[in-house]
């Protein structure tokens, strides 16, 4: 149990997928202008990343390793994640219309979210067990959400500040992200 908690802390803070590993930057900049959208995106990512973590682990260990086809990992994972998102979308639309409406356009956006793909590859690379991969996937997704929500909070305040013309909008966004990332490096060595 303790292991899992350590794992989660390491994924959320120390190895934060956004601020330490720099994956998933497009949605990070794209959906962080408003707290509302940031929340929607975070929820969608948590949902998909956990599912994707589980499925890719299974496919890797049960199929690719068995036939010694590890070199197909990348292409197989891309196909799996893309179709998974499609599947989840259809499933939610039918059985959980409320959740579907809530996640809205963020679900299909995840298809192109490299953080999901990255998390799956990390799971494999670190040779985690199935349970561990589920937990790390959740941790990474939660970390992504945390960073996104914090960033959205900052950005909502930035519009009230005097920003030199050349640095407005995305530029100041990236600078802010950099500073946030530096502060997250303070967690290094904690776990």
């Amino acid at each position, binding site marked *: 149990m303790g292991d899992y908690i350590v794992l989660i802390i390491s994924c959320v803070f120390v190895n934060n997928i956004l601020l330490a590993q720099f994956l998933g930057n497009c949605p990070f900049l794209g959906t962080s202008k408003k707290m509302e959208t940031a929340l929607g995106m975070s929820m969608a990512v948590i949902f998909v990343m956990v599912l994707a973590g589980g499925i890719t682990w299974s496919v890797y260990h049960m*199929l690719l390793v068995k036939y010694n086809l590890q070199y197909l990992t990348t292409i197989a994972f891309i196909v799996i994640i893309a179709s998974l998102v*499609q599947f989840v979308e259809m499933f939610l639309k039918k059985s959980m219309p409320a959740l579907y409406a809530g996640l809205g356009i963020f679900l299909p956006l995840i298809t192109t979210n490299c953080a999901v793909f990255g998390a799956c590859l990390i799971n494999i690379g670190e040779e985690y067990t199935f349970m561990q991969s589920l937990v790390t996937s959740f941790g990474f997704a939660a970390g992504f959400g945390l960073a996104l929500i914090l960033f959205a909070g900052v950005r909502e305040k930035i519009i009230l500040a*005097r920003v030199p013309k050349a640095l407005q909008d995305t530029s100041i966004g990236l600078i802010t992200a950099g500073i946030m990332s530096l502060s997250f490096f303070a967690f290094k060595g904690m776990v």
Partner: protein
Amino acid sequence: MDAVLVPVLIMGVMGFTIGAVLAIASKVFYVYEDPRIAEVESSLAGANCGGCGFTGCGAAAAAVVGGKALPSVCVVAGPETTAAVASIMGMDPGTAESKLSCNSCDGGLRAENKYHYMGATTCAAIAAMYGGKKTCEFGCMGYGDCVRSCLFDAIFINEKGFPTVIESKCVGCGACERACPKSVLHVVTMSDRLLAFNQTDGRLAPCRQECPAEIDIPRYIAQVRDKDYAGAVATIRERNPLLLSCGRVCPHPCEDYCRRGIEEEAVSINQLKRFAADYEMNTGSRLPISCAPDTGKKAAVVGGGPAGLSCAFFLRRLGHDVTIFDAMPKLGGMIRYGIPEYRLPKEVLDWECQGILKTGIEAKMNMRLGEDYTTKSLKEDGFDSIFLGIGAWSDYMLNVEGEDLDGCYTGIDFLTRFALQQQKDSLEDTPIPIGQKCAVIGGGNTAIDCVRTLVRLGAKEVYIVYRRTRNEMPANMVEIEAAEHEGIQFHFLAAPTKVMGDANGKVMGLEYLKMELGEPDASGRRRPVPIEGSETVIEIDMLITAIGQGPDVSFKDKESLDDMRFTRWNSIEADPETLQSDIPYIFTAGDAYTGASLVVAAIGGGRRAARAMHLYMTDQEVTPVEKSLREKHIPVSIFDKVPGLNSTTRVEMPELEVEERIQSFVEADLVITEEDAEVESNRCLSCCITCYDKD
């Protein structure tokens, strides 16, 4: 061999499995979705730009199918796309009216500062601090959040510091409306604009609050100042289709509320209106007037006076099919048959009426309600709603002895008969015999028009006999002055008691009692009380009584209109906000509703009724205007001092010399020159609620 076969096989199987699972899933998790959504989506631009305000083309398509957006939703595609979408939806592409962004504040920057501000230069930032640094809570702050929000470069901050929308570039996406923290910018269709009424939270100059037709006065004056005369005409016409007539006869209640008038002479607002209106007529070509796409609804407008013309004009512009029915041979109502030629030349009125009809309104003349048709027969003929703007054409009687002697007339009757003759529409050729010494009883516009007409017809001595004093006369002040100049003799504080006749039954004298002013009555005017034994007789050979008029409602006896209520004065009872009568499909306005009133009031009422009829005919609930400012003012906007003004003088209205004008019926008042219009328009303070331009 295996090295190739196995991975290919595995990937193939994987792809197949995934495909199969997705295929099955799409059946299992099938949710019915209107097939039109997909069709609509495929006709949209597919750019997923979000310019329409929806999250991508799919969402926009769903909104169109769900009835939440119009076929013109896509801001990047052209009219073909709109037509394609409309055909999928089985809608007339026309029903999609294009939207435009409009700025409702033109100068919040002139208001005083509450604090010194050095923070971020965005509207959102400064609005977050006590609602902005200006004392004006309503106005534009000028930091241009709207400009930054616009994807189409259609807004810029002009040299005066407030946003201007470039109409040709604006696609009506609404981004600026969402960006503006003060909701100064609104994205609306033309219909929305035509249907807008003054609201308690509007950005309205005091003159604009007072105008019964709610014309955007500061805006058209600014347009005259900028020499954009066509723009000024369009601004006026958005509220008042009878600008030539109003520019001549309106007693301009707006000028009483002009802020400059608090310190010195008010801006001559009506002269500027006339200047703009005459400009269009003098160019000889009409500015185009656009109408919303046809709605397929039919409205009947009974009465072609100012109220009827205004109602018909706005209904037509909202896309309805309108027919005017009028009892007289020509359109115009009282402004044709009451107001004499020298005040409003009928050539001018003809031009104005033609312009209104040219929007596509049919007019059926010589058709009297109650004789040639009834409200029921109109309904049976397929009219979805009916407007009654029949005016007030029935003269009140004095109820004194001898009133029916030979040589006695009533005001409306006299003016109408004379106008008919003058316009050669009358069947009777014998002109009304004009006396040498004529008395007109009454103090309103009708009385003054009668005396000024009599002077022009050659009467030697003309008297006005009025119960109260000059101050209480309801006629327009300029009219009273003009009558004085033209040599009319006034008998004030005189209450007629008897009309005396000779042996042949011909009028020869009028006896009246002298009065003095007593306590104020309900209307606030001091009530005249008779002085005992003060009978006086004036010798006359012609008498006109013009003591007021009420609607002629004889039509109600020709059909059973029991459901409709009338007031004690025969005016039609209706809801003051919606002007809907007790019969839901019948609406009213103008003199028929208010009793004898003003042209502008009839015009404003006509538009108000048009709004309600539009709601009624498009199956919406006929509700009052929200936060309506009808006959009210925004308290903070009414000042008692306006510091910091340079003293200026108002331009004089040019008029014909008295000797010249009393010889004929040519127009007595003339239009101001372009130079004068420029000077006068620069006197306007461009007020809003709390701000104004100091000079």
